[in-house]
């Protein structure tokens, strides 16, 4: 019988914090500035410059630690991790090794077999590195230090995951928690959330772990799932052939669906960590922890409870809408603007999610304003436009955030309910469809539908269906 293998996965997740300034200097963290325009002597490692810690970084890190059930390290400090690479102008990264800000936490995920805890080993604060652009033609690389010194937290899990689905559930849970806290936008594509996957395989029932590899360069959930499956297969094949898995770092190439060894244990990095002498220790009092806890925004479970009490919407809808803070915020703002939470929930559940799926849009990338959705709902309720037209208008709101009142006016989309204006069209339809008219008069109720459809089409969908229905009935009496 073929051997059965189990995959053992642990993650290192880097999350870029949503501060306005870098971790140790007053440079902006804004994305997309000209190369090196957000730099200073501190974040470019000039001799004699002194880092000063951004208090907001500590508070965001504490909030994430508390929300993931970690113990806060009440005396914590920074260490230097030494390595030479051009993305790192100081030749060391300021990070935390010995006393990281938080330890021993967990998050709960949903799996096919019920709830499961993924334990968090530790979480530390550190600075990001600069960005290297490799020139295709020249034999050079270009360095931009705008990202150098941008604050990160790294969350290191225990090797508690067994499948790609569990890994993705864990990442989605972390992302949801951090987004709810407002501590980061967690966009995988833009790199504000990054995951390194540590993976090994072992025979089912084995107590010891196999040799693990670490995979980097995973910037979408799809790439992570592919990389896990690919690496699992590669390691099983090696073992089946009687070969050994080598402990190494591998880079996943999602286009080629293949990973490459980056460096192996033989030239493993020796980071020579030592305490950072330029930064003083951080002492976190019980009062400070209590303050951060008290300032914590409403988390998802609390939001769900409130929705139950405040809004008359199905629990299922509430769960879907609160899966992302962005859709929850949209829902609440639109419901407040029009006072019709049930209708707003319907629009989000049906049209918003349909368009997101069709266009591959993540919740964080939604750009339309909730006020415009609220206005659209009011327009439908007032009978100014009908449901079919509203869906078309919403597509324009979704892509271009148009003001629906103006758009309906400009495009002449108002529902025509004036019988005088409809009469001519209805008469034409009756004259052009003698068969349907005959069928209807002969008792086939269905034939009226065909005539309705013809009329609506002739009116480009803008007629009031109730009025048209009544007119047809009256005229065919």
């Amino acid at each position, binding site marked *: 019988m073929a051997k059965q293998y189990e995959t053992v996965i642990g993650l290192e997740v880097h999350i870029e914090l949503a501060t*306005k300034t870098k971790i140790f200097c007053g440079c902006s963290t804004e994305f997309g500035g000209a190369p090196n325009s957000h730099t200073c002597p501190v974040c470019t490692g000039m001799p004699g410059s002194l880092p000063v810690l951004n208090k907001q970084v500590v508070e965001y890190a504490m909030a994430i630690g508390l929300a993931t059930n970690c113990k806060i390290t009440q005396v914590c400090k920074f260490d230097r991790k030494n390595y030479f690479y051009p993305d790192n102008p100081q030749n060391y990264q300021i990070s935390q090794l010995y006393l990281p800000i938080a330890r021993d936490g967990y998050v709960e995920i949903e799996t096919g077999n019920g709830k499961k805890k993924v334990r968090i080993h530790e979480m530390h604060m550190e600075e990001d590195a600069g960005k290297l652009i490799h020139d295709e033609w020249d034999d050079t*690389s270009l*360095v931009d230090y705008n990202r150098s010194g941008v604050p990160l937290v790294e969350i290191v899990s225990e090797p508690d995951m067994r499948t790609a689905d569990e890994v993705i559930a864990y990442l989605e849970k972390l992302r949801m928690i951090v987004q709810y806290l407002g501590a980061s936008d967690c966009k995988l594509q833009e790199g504000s959330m990054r995951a390194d996957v540590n993976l090994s395989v072992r025979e089912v029932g084995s107590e010891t772990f196999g040799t693990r590899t670490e995979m980097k360069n995973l910037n979408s959930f799809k790439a992570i799932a592919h990389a896990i499956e690919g690496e699992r297969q590669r390691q099983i094949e090696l073992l089946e052939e009687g070969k050994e898995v080598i402990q190494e770092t591998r880079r996943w190439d999602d286009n080629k669906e293949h990973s490459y060894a980056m460096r192996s244990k033989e030239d493993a990095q020796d980071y020579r960590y030592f305490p950072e002498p330029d930064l003083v220790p951080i002492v976190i009092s019980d009062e400070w922890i209590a303050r951060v806890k008290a300032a914590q925004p409403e988390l998802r479970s609390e939001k769900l409870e409130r929705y139950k009490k405040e809004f008359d919407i199905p629990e299922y809808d509430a769960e879907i809408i609160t899966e992302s803070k962005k859709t929850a915020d949209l829902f609440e703002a639109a419901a407040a603007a029009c006072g019709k939470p049930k209708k707003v929930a319907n629009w989000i559940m049906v049209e918003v999610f349909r368009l997101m799926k069709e266009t591959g849009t993540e919740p964080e990338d939604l750009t339309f304003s909730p006020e415009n959705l609220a206005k659209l709902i009011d327009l439908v309720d007032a009978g100014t436009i009908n449901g079919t037209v509203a869906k078309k208008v919403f597509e324009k709101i979704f892509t271009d955030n148009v003001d629906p009142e103006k758009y309906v006016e400009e495009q002449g989309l108002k529902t025509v309910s004036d019988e005088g204006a409809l009469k001519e069209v209805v008469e034409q339809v009756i004259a052009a469809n003698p068969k349907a008219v005959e069928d209807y008069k002969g008792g086939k109720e269905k034939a009226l539908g065909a005539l309705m459809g013809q009329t609506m089409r002739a009116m480009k969908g803008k007629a009031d269906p109730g009025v048209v229905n009544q007119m047809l009935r009256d005229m065919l009496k």
Partner: protein
Amino acid sequence: MADMANKISDETIEYVGILAKLELSEEEKEAAKADMEKMLDYIDTLNELDTAGVEPMSHVFPVSNVFREDVVTNGDNREETLANAPLRKEDSFEVPRTIG
């Protein structure tokens, strides 16, 4: 501890040189070995002290919680940052290609 207890091997001094990105001549290696041996001997002297019950020190100054507020204070500083660049291309540092 009068006599030198610690010995640094040729391999160790070679490895430390690689980590520090230093090319050392034979004489320099010998001198560095002697220096490192002395340093380790001194650490051994410190280790003779009984530190049971003493909190590990995390910093030499009895100061903690020095913070700044999250307010942008620096503007576009790229000309000063790039002033010492050995090679510059537009607004970026230019370095030998780092990846294959």
